[in-house]
């Protein structure tokens, strides 16, 4: 059934194309960097590989947000926290890979710990010398935080703006905590000066290409998983909770569990994105918990079109490409441009780029269909299409004008 849907037409075909492009990029971009001579017109410089690799991580973060915001209406303004936690878990592994090559040459303690007079490794740093342990932590820490946070928030039926505010509070609290030197995560300098990942030099072109490919493949996998979730009966339930939560409860569904599952999966995806991001940018610091980071993610998703899977990916890539260009030309104006973009999208493109594309395509198709019908009618000589017998008006006329699916409160 899943494979059948996968090769079907329409929105599902768009997913297939996206996955195909990502997988192709995972092969082609590294080849163009490694196997093509730097003088060739097809050569992709290493900094471009690293930059686009970073964008792909942002795209994965935007996709994670789309699962909860687009499909379940949970406007999380704290997804940057899950991203940063995944990043820190990877950063801790990378720190321990430095070994005795640090400035202070301590084989066990990272430089910042020597500097801060740590005598021994804090217990929560144990195990991070193993990649597998770090990899599990990348999934488990954001997932567990989201699970605990969601357990309390959804059970006490915190929704809407209040939920958004407490997600902001969550990331802000983590920001403050990670800034403290005695937390043992490097304080405001964070974790940096990485040397190796899995025994390969993080700075080397081949490693950067491999990280790019890993990001692209992971994003493709996340697209597939999100698409499978959203298309399942559970996914329909997720949207049902978004549109009429109390209706689902009166049908016997536990809306809080429905949300909790999506929120946890989404946080794990965000954590993976952060873990892939850190070795590509070479640093993780508390700034990643900045509340404004999480808000930017919302803008990416809104620009691309929430609830479309592909939209937030496109939004993340476009906005970040724009940001890189803009901060090169007019750095001080970037925030205004971003704010202006958000306002413009909200007012002019409420369904984002993908939504606009779809309605444009839909109109074109409707026009084509109409002209076909007209032609056929003219040939047969039918004067007018037969219309269905009209229903008599409702007693409350206002209620008839629902044309667009909108979330509604049950009463």
């Amino acid at each position, binding site marked *: 059934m899943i494979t059948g849907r996968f090769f079907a037409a329409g929105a599902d075909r768009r997913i297939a194309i996206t996955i195909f492009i990502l997988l192709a990029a995972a092969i082609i971009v590294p080849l163009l960097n490694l196997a093509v001579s730097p003088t060739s017109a097809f050569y992709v410089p290493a900094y471009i590989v690293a930059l686009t690799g970073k964008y792909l991580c942002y795209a994965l973060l935007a996709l994670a947000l789309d699962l909860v915001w687009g499909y379940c209406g949970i406007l999380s303004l704290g997804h940057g926290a899950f991203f940063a936690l995944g990043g820190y878990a990877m950063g801790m592994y990378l720190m321990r890979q430095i070994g005795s090559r640090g400035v202070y040459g301590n084989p066990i303690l990272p430089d910042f710990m020597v500097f801060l007079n740590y005598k021994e490794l804090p217990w929560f740093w144990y195990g991070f010398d193993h990649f597998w342990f770090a990899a599990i932590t990348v999934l488990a820490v954001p997932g567990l935080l989201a699970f605990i946070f969601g357990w309390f928030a959804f059970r006490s039926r915190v929704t809407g703006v209040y939920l958004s505010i407490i997600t902001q509070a969550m990331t802000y609290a983590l920001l403050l905590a990670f800034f403290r030197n005695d937390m043992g995560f490097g304080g405001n300098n964070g974790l940096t000066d990485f040397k190796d990942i899995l025994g390969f030099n993080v700075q080397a072109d081949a490693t950067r290409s491999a990280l790019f490919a890993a990001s692209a493949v992971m994003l493709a996998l996340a697209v597939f998983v999100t698409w499978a979730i959203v298309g399942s009966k559970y996914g*329909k339930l997720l949207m049902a909770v978004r549109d009429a939560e109390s209706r689902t409860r009166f049908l016997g569904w536990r809306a809080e569990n429905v949300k909790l599952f999506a929120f946890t999966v989404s946080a794990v995806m965000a954590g993976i994105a952060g873990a892939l991001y850190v070795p590509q940018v070479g640093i993780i610091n508390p700034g990643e918990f900045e509340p404004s980071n999480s808000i930017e993610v919302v803008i990416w998703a809104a620009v691309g079109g929430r609830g479309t899977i592909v939209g937030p990916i496109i939004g993340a890539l476009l906005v970040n490409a724009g940001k890189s260009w803009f901060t090169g030309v007019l750095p001080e104006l970037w925030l205004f441009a971003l704010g202006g973009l958000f306002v413009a999208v909200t007012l002019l493109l409420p369904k984002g780029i993908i939504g606009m594309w779809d309605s444009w395509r839909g109109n074109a198709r409707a026009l084509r269909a109409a002209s076909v019908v007209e032609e056929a009618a003219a040939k047969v000589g039918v004067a007018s299409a037969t219309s269905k017998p009209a229903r008599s008006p409702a*007693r409350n006329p206002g209620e008839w004008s629902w044309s667009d699916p909108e979330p509604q409160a049950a009463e």
Partner: protein
Amino acid sequence: MSKSNTILYLDGVSVSFDGFRAINNLSLVLDKGEMRAIIGPNGAGKTTMMDIVTGKTRPDEGEVFFDGQVDLTRHDEAEIAMMGIGRKFQKPTVFESHTIEDNLMLALKGPRSIFPALFHRRSAAEARQIDDILGIIRLGDKRHEQAANLSHGQKQWLEIGMLLAQDPKLLLVDEPVAGMTDAETEETARLLKDIARDHSVIVVEHDMHFVRELGVKVTCLHEGSVLSEGTLDFVSADERVVEVYLGR
């Protein structure tokens, strides 16, 4: 009063919102298999009574029992729905962005946990049930359309269809014929009478023709308690009922 053999038993129930008593010492008993019509002016507390039964609102005092022994005040909405109480909202509430068919699929009786839903595949039996219900609510030709495109009356029917899919023991139906033509209203009365053959039903409705059509015992609520109870003729001849309806 004995609770045995009752499907719903409310005794001395009161609830206040910010000091305003929406339900005031309400007592109401529904026998197993009975259909009851509830009438009453706007603000009488009819919808609030359903909120109490379905776990949306907790009563301040009083007893609410389902099936003679289950204390409903100790359970939440989802648990109560799983016990077998289904509800149609006053304002028809369906999943607008889903197709008619998917609306019914989400309502179909079955396990309600996440993982089965994640890996769920529609069985032949489920497809047959959905087909049956689509036939009953006459939306078979629209099965693949978005629920948002339905008319008000059709949404009412879809919501009743979702109740049928849920297959509860007790149905609470709030104003099912609002926004329907006379023909549709008659059709709905026939449908509800049909449902009442093997379910217990409470119908709230303002439309007196419709209530007459149902031909069942009527309870008139006013200011949160029972004003009068009996046949429609008896209730509508009751002076106090006439007064609250005319004296508005």
